[in-house]
């Protein structure tokens, strides 16, 4: 199945039945479901090891959760805001990485236990949010320079532009002097307010353009929040340029 076909199938499935929550990691699927449920619902999930879980949701709150195996509180109890931490810990312990083996939501029955205050979805989401990841090389200029260093024969020079300032990052002095007029024109062109892709380039867009004149190779222009990086590549195809950037960003 091609990525396009997979995307189309996902969109069609989503249009028919709502978000395919079972495709997300279990804890995320669960908190998303709580956050989007207003009417009383019974949500049943089966983990890969066969454990069967039932959650009672209403008004974007989790009122009760039950497990088919012997379990300590907060399982099988009426829940309130004071149980938020315990519930978050229990969910993290019970729901492993991967996905639910089965996941379905049905309307609640009259006898279903909705007699508690419940835990707000927002509180659970906040409590379960992963800690901000520490990216080893988060500095954008460092990443650009790292790409240049990883392929010294292919990358002739690299530059970064923030505001109206253009700063050379790597490359010999002669190469930078020779390239600077062309690079300045290029930066001005792609950051012009009338350029329809300028907005995307200042966030997460990537542009690959042929080098001017008879020069072989291409320019790889990488967008970042508030900054644009540019790598001048020798004798490199556009696909190889994108692959070089992708390879060094993982």
């Amino acid at each position, binding site marked *: 199945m091609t990525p*396009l076909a997979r995307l189309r199938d996902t969109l069609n499935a989503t249009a028919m039945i709502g978000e395919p929550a079972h495709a997300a990691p279990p804890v995320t699927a669960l908190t998303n479901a709580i956050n989007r449920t207003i009417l009383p619902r019974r949500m049943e999930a089966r983990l890969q090891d066969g454990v069967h879980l039932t959650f009672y949701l209403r008004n974007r709150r989790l009122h009760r959760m039950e497990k088919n195996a012997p379990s300590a509180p907060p399982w099988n109890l009426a829940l309130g805001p004071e149980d938020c931490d315990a519930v978050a810990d229990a969910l993290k312990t019970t729901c492993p990485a991967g996905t639910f083996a089965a996941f379905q939501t049905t309307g609640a029955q009259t006898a279903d236990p909705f007699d508690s205050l419940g835990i707000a979805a927002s509180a659970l989401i906040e409590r379960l949010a992963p800690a901000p990841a520490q990216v080893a090389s988060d500095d954008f200029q460092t990443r650009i320079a790292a790409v240049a260093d990883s392929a010294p024969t292919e990358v002739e020079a690299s530059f970064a532009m923030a505001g109206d300032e253009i700063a050379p990052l790597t490359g010999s002095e002669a190469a930078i002097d020779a390239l600077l007029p062309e690079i300045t024109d290029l930066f001005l062109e792609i950051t012009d307010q009338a350029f329809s892709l300028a907005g995307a380039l200042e966030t997460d867009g*990537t542009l*690959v*353009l042929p080098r*001017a004149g008879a020069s072989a190779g291409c320019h790889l222009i990488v967008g970042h929040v508030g900054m644009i990086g540019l790598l001048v590549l020798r004798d490199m195809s*556009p696909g190889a340029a994108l692959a070089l950037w992708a390879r060094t960003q993982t």
Partner: protein
Amino acid sequence: MTPNTFPDFRAAHPDCALLVLSDIRSRTVLAADGALAYPQEYLDAISTSAFEIMAQSATRRTWALFLTPNGIRAFRAVPHLGNVALTCLMSPDADVDIMLAQLDTLAQGIEPWEAAA
């Protein structure tokens, strides 16, 4: 170029979700074929992007790629027609080198009267 040229190209290259032929001087859509029925405004925006990237700079470019997390736009000039360009929307993991080569082949088969029609 026949009415089936673009659908046949897309059938042969499943990564191509939309193919647009634009007059980049007037930013007019000359022909388009896509997996979905894209609104005219969207096709016009693609033609505008093609104009800005291919024709607006001091150096006239023959190709360009624009990548976002959602997909790739490949722009390819139709050199023998001057102000005409092809734009292909692809999935993010498509092979852009192959697609640019295929777009080049497709461009070479477009006759001047077809772009003027």
